């Protein structure tokens, strides 16, 4: 039976909380396994630094991802070169795996429009802040790709809260009807800001919602990067090359936890207790994979130390680069509104420039 044909209430696992093997190790080379671990460490360290930048007033509101590295890196790692990724707003880790420089993520949360500009060849859609809106775009893009006769998979991330929006239903329903090559990846981190998962749906699992759309739904231990990889890989392969009678789309529910606040503007102690957080911290995906890699001789102290150093350097360099970027020119807000700027917008832009000339930038900037 395929990994995807589980009872949706039955979580797929490969490693237990102590890094012991309890499932089938996916077909990844030693180098790839170690690289996955490194990416998770990178995401964790980036997160820590980003929160601290916000605290120091060097960055705006930021949504942390700590605890969710296993789901992000495990899933993004399962994509092929040509596949596409549709993020929500928390997939900084998945983005890196797919070629999005950390500097871009920093710039976006520092309020620079350029942070949302993916380089050519980086198959990532812009961050989607309005919840679940990206699901329909992922479905439409996958549909278009299928109509063009391509063979690509489209992964789309959203949260447990996101499954309550109408767009979730519409996106998955279209995907089922038009049999689009999508992997709908729900990061069920138990909370939508202060609202617990049970308040989003009376359904026992999110995975089982797929049954109603006519395709596979599978629940995976989202803090087990290897299980996430295995499930996502199977979903990606099925999206591209379904067997007779299989539907291309899959809904993956990755059960996990965000260790920190919803965003730096949130105080989780108001709505959840420390004991719950501790319980989930015991499932931390990073030590879990590290133990497995050490136990199987793929990693030792020296390598771990090297990785620590390399991720610290990489993040420090990204911060240096992002902070070296100057505040964009105010006239940039008029760019890319249309392909060619209408006359009255040209006039508005000119009036802004004239005012800056006359009064200086101090007349605009608050604080």
């Amino acid at each position: 039976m395929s990994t995807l044909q589980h009872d949706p209430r039955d979580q797929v696992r490969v490693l237990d909380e102590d890094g012991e093997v309890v499932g089938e190790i996916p077909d990844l080379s030693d180098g790839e396994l170690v690289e996955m671990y490194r990416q998770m460490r990178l995401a964790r360290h980036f997160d820590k630094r980003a929160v601290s930048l916000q605290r120091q007033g060097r960055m705006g509101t930021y949504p942390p991802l700590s605890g969710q590295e296993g789901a992000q890196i495990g899933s993004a790692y399962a994509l092929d070169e040509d596949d596409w990724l549709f993020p929500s707003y928390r997939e900084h880790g998945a983005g890196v795996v797919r070629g999005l420089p950390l500097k871009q993520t920093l710039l976006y949360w520092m309020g620079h429009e350029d942070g949302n500009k993916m380089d050519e060849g980086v198959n990532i859609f812009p961050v989607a802040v309005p919840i679940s809106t990206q699901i329909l775009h992922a479905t439409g893009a996958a549909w278009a790709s299928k109509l063009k006769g391509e063979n690509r998979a489209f992964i789309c991330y959203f949260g447990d809260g996101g499954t309550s929006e109408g767009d979730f239903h519409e996106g998955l329903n279209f995907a089922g009807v038009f049999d689009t090559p999508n992997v709908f990846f729900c990061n069920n981190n138990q909370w939508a800001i202060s609202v617990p998962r049970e308040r989003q749906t009376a359904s026992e699992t999110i995975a089982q919602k797929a049954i109603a759309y006519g395709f596979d739904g599978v629940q995976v231990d989202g803090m087990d990067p290897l299980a996430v990889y295995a499930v996502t890989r199977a979903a990606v392969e099925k999206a591209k090359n379904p067997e007779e009678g299989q539907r291309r789309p899959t809904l993956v529910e990755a059960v996990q936890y965000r260790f920190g606040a919803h965003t730096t503007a949130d105080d989780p102690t108001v709505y959840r207790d420390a004991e719950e957080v501790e319980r989930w911290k015991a499932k931390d995906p990073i030590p879990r994979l590290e133990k497995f890699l050490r136990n199987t001789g793929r990693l030792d102290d020296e390598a771990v130390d090297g990785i620590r150093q390399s991720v610290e350097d990489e993040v420090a360099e990204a911060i240096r680069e992002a902070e070296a970027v100057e505040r964009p020119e105010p006239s940039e807000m008029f760019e890319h509104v249309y392909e060619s700027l209408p006359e009255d917008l040209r006039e508005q832009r000119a009036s802004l420039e004239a005012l800056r000339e006359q009064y200086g930038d101090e007349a605009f900037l608050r604080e």
Partner: protein
Amino acid sequence: MATQQTTTQNLTLVQAVRDGLYTEMSRDSDVLVLGEDVGKNGGVFRATEGLYDEFGPDRVIDTPLAESGIVGTAIGMAAYGLKPVPEIQFMGFIYPAFDQIVSHAARLRTRSRGRFTCPLVVRAPYGGGIRAPEHHSESKEAFFAHEPGLKVVIPSTPHDTKGLLISAIRDPDPVVFLEPKLIYRAFRGDVPEDDYTVPIGEAAVRREGTDISVFTWGAMTRPTLEAAENLAEAGVDCEVVDLRTMSPLDRETIVESFKKTGRAAVVHEAPKTGGLGGEIASIIQEEALLYQEAPVERIAGFDTPFPLYALEDYYLPSVARVEEGIRNAVEF
């Protein structure tokens, strides 16, 4: 026995929202609050803080994350005799509920020929200037003012906030109540502890003047008043009118003020094109053309998507831009 005295509290605007909700919920058991994170968390801006403990989970309801669901079910509740006050976490996320608001809340009375009504208040923080992420800074009051059947209210002081919110909750028709989050905590003001109302549809003259009428609302009221004080030093005497209700507009106060000054400017952070500045200019044309000495100056957000926060200070009308616009109208 001493007569009961009205005591006042010194509250921020967001505390006045909370106080308005608290006051009406205490008075009327049909009033309930629903939305995302409004319960235990007390709202992401703390506008419903403590209400969950006070009134319990049946009246302060954390809903699933679905704006159409929140407003659509509130419409059903309102038609069925309750007085729901749904909260939309940020105005930028109101769009999933747009269909419910404009196709149903606004028209239930008309469509049922008065059999059903929709006395609900959709609350949402709006506006820029708080270094918020994408989609968290928009001002789209004009979308709703354009819709017959809705009332649209935007307070700018703690006192008005409580009084207008209570009026909105007691109003027999649906009200979109937009809260200027830039000034949620910017200053405090006296707010009576008792219940009181500030009528919907009445503007407030914040500064009397003779040279020009400047119409504004919400978070733009403060920079406009500041510009007016700066201009006073240069000999320009501005009248500043805080409209407070965007629909129905207080035509009488607008026209009366304009007839006195003969010149007008409108300040809003929403984009210029299709913004309410155009509506106000039209009212002036219709009712006071012969008094008009200069074109109505519109000082507004640019016709671009609201930029990410690195540039938001350039997008929002600053004191300097307001002064410049007023001068244009005065020196015409």
